């Protein structure tokens, strides 16, 4: 089978599996995965970002996720005066509003509470079915079993890390409404949020699948095989002797033609 046909078959299988597995994920797997993600975020978030006074993440009655992130913010008096206005603004899509203690005088904030809509957290479970679809689209399900398990663990770890980064960025964005930040910091947070929410969850399953699945990798990166080349052989297929200008022996020619032509 030529490389083009292999890739075309992979595209068809991968697309079909993506549709099937994403529908399966959307209707059946989403809730269990969100439950696991919340518990994992609670454990790792408390260790890395949280404090002991309150749970790092809790679920509100509406199903949204409520976070408390320790963050030292010194609020200038002018910003303190403008706080009611700041609280009316929604800092991020999905982030409801920072909740601040009501008191007068100078204010040092030690932590920020905010809610993230449940629909926004879905993206942090979505990489798993995409990864499964890519690995299962490779020929030979038995050979895909080990990469499937190993890659699933990698993707799951990545999703927890991405969620924690998103939570930290959201907390800093909320804090930015109370204490002004430099233009560069704002841009950096915006860029980081874009990567964490819109790029990495969608793109990461592909390089992870290629890195853990040797056969899939070799299928993808076996450039230029399977079709006779007009105008002679490619330099990459020539043996060392041929490259040096000397004629190749029969054995060398057999070796060059043999395994490289199999697909």
């Amino acid at each position, binding site marked *: 089978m030529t490389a083009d046909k292999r890739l075309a078959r992979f595209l068809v299988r991968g697309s079909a599996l993506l549709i099937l597995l994403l529908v399966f994920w959307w209707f059946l797997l989403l809730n269990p995965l969100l439950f696991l993600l919340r518990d994992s975020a609670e454990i790792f978030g408390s260790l890395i970002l949280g404090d002991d006074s309150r749970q790092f993440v809790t679920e509100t009655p509406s199903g949204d996720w409520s976070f408390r992130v320790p963050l030292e913010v010194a609020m200038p008096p002018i910003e303190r005066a403008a706080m009611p206005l700041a609280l009316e603004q929604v800092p991020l899509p999905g982030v409801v509003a920072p909740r601040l203690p009501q008191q007068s005088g100078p204010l040092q904030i030690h932590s920020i509470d905010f809610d993230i809509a449940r629909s926004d957290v879905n993206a942090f479970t979505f990489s798993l079915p995409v990864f499964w679809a890519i690995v299962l689209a490779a020929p030979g399900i038995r050979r895909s079993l080990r990469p499937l398990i190993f890659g699933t663990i990698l993707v799951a770890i990545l999703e927890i890390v991405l969620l924690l980064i998103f939570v930290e960025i959201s907390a800093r964005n909320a804090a930015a409404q109370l204490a002004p930040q430099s233009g560069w910091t704002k841009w950096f947070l915006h860029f980081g949020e874009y990567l964490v929410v819109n790029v990495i969850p969608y793109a990461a399953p592909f390089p992870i699948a290629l890195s853990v699945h040797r056969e899939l990798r070799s299928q993808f990166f076996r450039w*230029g095989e399977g079709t006779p080349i007009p105008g002679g052989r490619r330099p990459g297929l020539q043996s060392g002797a041929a490259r040096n200008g000397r004629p190749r022996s029969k054995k060398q020619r057999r070796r060059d033609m043999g395994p490289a032509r199999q697909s």
Partner: protein
Amino acid sequence: MLLTPPVQAVDRQFSRVLVKVSHGLIGICGGHARVEGAVLRDPATGFAVEMRDGCNAVNVTILLWSAVLAFPAPWRLKALGLLAGSLLIQAVNIVRFISLFYIGQYSMTWFDFAHGYLWESLLVLDTMVVFCLWANRASRYGAVPNDSR
């Protein structure tokens, strides 16, 4: 660069062009829709979809361009890969946009699913395969040095 104001302006114009093309295709196939800038609206139901940043497949096109430009191939083949690959991705994206226009009129739950997750991952998969098909041809006809064999 996508997030800088000058590129954003070009990006928005490009989205409007894609919406016009989608509108033309719907008209050719006998459907009814109205264009309002980057918004495609159904005159009967009032349902509308807007092509915003990220909906015009520019991000995956950039991904393809990066891969093609980084691949060791002659410039003629690279130019061909950039052009043909971008056209293919945009063709898939127009199918995506039109399908979302109709899915949204049927069910918003399915629209959210197809818009946020399904089509996004299909586009990335298509981009990856388009790049591999191009790289395969480029190395077959472009005499790419391949010492790793």
